């Protein structure tokens, strides 16, 4: 009898063990397969370019003369392929900036690749791009178009890309920085807010502000950061900068995002005070231009801070005050693979009363809708489109969501954002693996890692993949087109 009991217990333990083992197996059924179709609702693939198999960070789409040109910043290569082949030159090149003619979105043409710095993944490449026309810059050559990019973590560069197939270097910041990242360039004033790591500052990423109205001769204005980040300060160091978005002279506001996935803060800054106030980096001078600040939960960071001022809120239309609200959409960045950290998402913040910003809603993709924590790679938000072209601005936001692809979100009522479409590209043989450590060993899976998204004024959506799958050009389909005022298509 005792023997029977022990036998039953052994069977029970074995069954339990088999359940534990089978759970990951069933989740693995959700992994993407080469050759499987993309997953999509209300979004459709229009065109594709493989970007030479390079890991992509940020696309900028520029209406350049009568053409549309995509400038795509890349991360560094992989240990297996540190220098992918540039098929235009036949030469292996460290990942840098790809330039693609997307005038015909169904047939994008790869025009050029500007090499970046050596190093794999985050160590190398040239992640960020911004583009301005000389005719808009106060001291630019009206016949030229200029590309601002980071040169790895070391420096910033400006290229003449008037002929996008033949980019020419016109300026490079002298002196090596600790790091760089997602900068902003006001095309109508030329003011450049550069994410830099100036030696001496206590963080690797802070703000250098330049007058770049003459792209060949930028002039430094000042350094900026949160009090406690400046040289020679002591005590805790506030989380470092990720990036910023300026609304320029009219709105007189710049929105800074600090932290990426942790210790986040969104800072609202008076642009005039920032540019013309006292410049010595003392705590008092750094505090002077700040208008408001939202300290987020330490489990989330501010990757993108996308402002949308004076949004009419239908529900508040009859209210004597507050029927329009100033909104900032904060997008966090998921860093770790397979949900090994707190979930990152998009937050909508009411900043109408700037001194007291408040989160009013969030958007997130349900994990169970795709078993995304088990698919491989990162699952969570990374960034939003940053174009303010009327077609989508304040109506539909697009969020890059790593293994959940791109998500189209109806934001006309920012108190209740709702998903209206999504597109998860298929993986290819170029898609790179993503690993987690299990008992000290790498366990790897292959999944799409939609990293960034941008839109153009025609209504096309461009998504790029961090895991080397390339660039997909999309459009809204079905009912979702109506939100943007686009003609209905089946």
């Amino acid at each position, binding site marked *: 009898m005792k023997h029977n009991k022990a036998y039953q217990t052994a069977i029970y333990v074995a069954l339990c063990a088999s359940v534990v083992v089978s759970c990951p197996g069933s989740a693995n059924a959700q992994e993407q397969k080469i050759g499987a179709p993309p997953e999509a609702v209300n979004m459709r693939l229009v065109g594709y370019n493989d970007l030479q198999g390079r890991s992509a960070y940020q696309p900028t789409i520029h209406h350049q003369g009568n053409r549309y040109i995509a400038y795509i910043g890349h991360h560094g290569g992989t240990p297996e392929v540190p220098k992918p082949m540039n098929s235009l030159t036949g030469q292996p090149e460290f990942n840098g900036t790809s330039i693609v003619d997307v005038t015909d979105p169904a047939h994008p043409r790869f025009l050029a690749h500007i090499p970046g710095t050596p*190093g*794999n*993944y*985050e*160590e190398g490449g040239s992640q960020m791009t911004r583009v301005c026309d000389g005719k808009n810059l106060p001291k630019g050559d009206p016949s030229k178009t200029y590309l601002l990019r980071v040169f790895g*973590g070391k420096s910033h560069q400006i290229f003449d890309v008037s002929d996008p197939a033949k980019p020419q270097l016109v300026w490079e910041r002298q002196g090596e920085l*600790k*790091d760089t990242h997602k900068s902003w360039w006001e095309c109508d004033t030329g003011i450049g807010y550069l994410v830099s790591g100036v030696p*001496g*500052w*206590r*963080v*690797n990423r802070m703000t250098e502000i330049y007058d770049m109205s003459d792209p060949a001769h930028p002039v430094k204005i000042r350094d900026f950061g949160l009090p406690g980040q400046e040289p020679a300060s*002591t*005590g*805790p*160091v506030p989380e*470092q900068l990720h990036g910023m978005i300026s609304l320029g002279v009219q709105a007189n506001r710049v929105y800074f995002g600090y932290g990426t*996935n*942790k*210790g986040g803060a969104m800072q609202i800054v008076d642009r005039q005070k920032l540019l013309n106030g006292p410049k010595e980096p003392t705590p008092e001078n750094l505090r002077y231009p700040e208008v408001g600040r939202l300290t987020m939960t*330490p*489990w989330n960071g501010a990757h993108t801070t996308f402002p949308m001022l004076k949004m009419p809120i239908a529900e508040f239309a009859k209210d004597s005050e507050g029927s329009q609200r100033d909104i900032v959409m904060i997008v966090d960045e998921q*860093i*770790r*693979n397979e949900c*090994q*950290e707190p979930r990152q998402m998009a937050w909508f913040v009411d900043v109408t009363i700037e001194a007291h910003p408040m989160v009013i809603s969030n958007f997130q993709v349900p994990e169970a809708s795709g078993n995304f924590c088990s698919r491989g790679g990162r699952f969570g938000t990374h960034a939003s489109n940053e174009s303010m072209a009327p077609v989508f601005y304040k109506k539909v936001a697009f969020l890059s969501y790593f293994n959940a692809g791109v998500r189209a979100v109806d934001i006309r009522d920012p108190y209740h954002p709702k998903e209206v479409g999504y597109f998860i590209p298929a993986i290819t043989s170029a898609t790179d693996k993503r*690993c*987690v*450590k299990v*008992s*000290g060993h790498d366990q790897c899976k292959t999944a799409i890692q939609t990293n960034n998204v941008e839109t153009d004024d025609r209504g096309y959506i461009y998504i790029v993949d961090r895991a080397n799958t390339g660039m997909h050009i999309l459009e809204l389909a079905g009912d979702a087109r109506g939100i943007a005022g686009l003609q209905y298509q089946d």
Partner: protein
Amino acid sequence: MLGSHRRRVALGIIALGLTATSIVLSSTALLRAGVPAVSAPSSAGAVWTEEPWPFAIDQWGTGQAFRCISWVCGADLHLYLRAKIGFCRCATGVSEDDEIDRVGDTELLGPNYKPVSAGQAVNAGILRGRARLFRIDRAFRSSILALTVALANKCDAVVAIVTSADDISSTQEAIALDFLRSETVQRWAKMNTGFE
């Protein structure tokens, strides 16, 4: 008398039960963290035992806390250890004192702290970085010294703070650094850090 004896026996059984429960709970926590309860003695003969993480949860979660009692370490040493995944500069790690300030955990002990001296390079097995001594001013209490260690494995940081109610001598600094070099910590670091 017999009743009293039974009571003592009952109390003894309860005490044993509580001890066993605490051992099980402690082991469970350690298994989760991947760190055994008692480390191998360092070259200085120190024995580190795990104790509860005393700090409020923050964005980096909780870590592991260890204690080396005064009769083996010369002072009652506390060492607080945790990983900060993706918090290091991948290319350069912790190569300068500013990075100790940015990455380290000194602020767990209080917001008002200043370095006592320049930092120094530290190697601990697969980990490379720097260590620096800080003095932390505390309200209504005397200030305290802490050795802040910030190490890197690829893009990930492993940080430790070492404190004592008394001042920390260079011998005790060495004992703490030896613990970070021990098989116990190295195995934990290999399992929990070094992601691309």
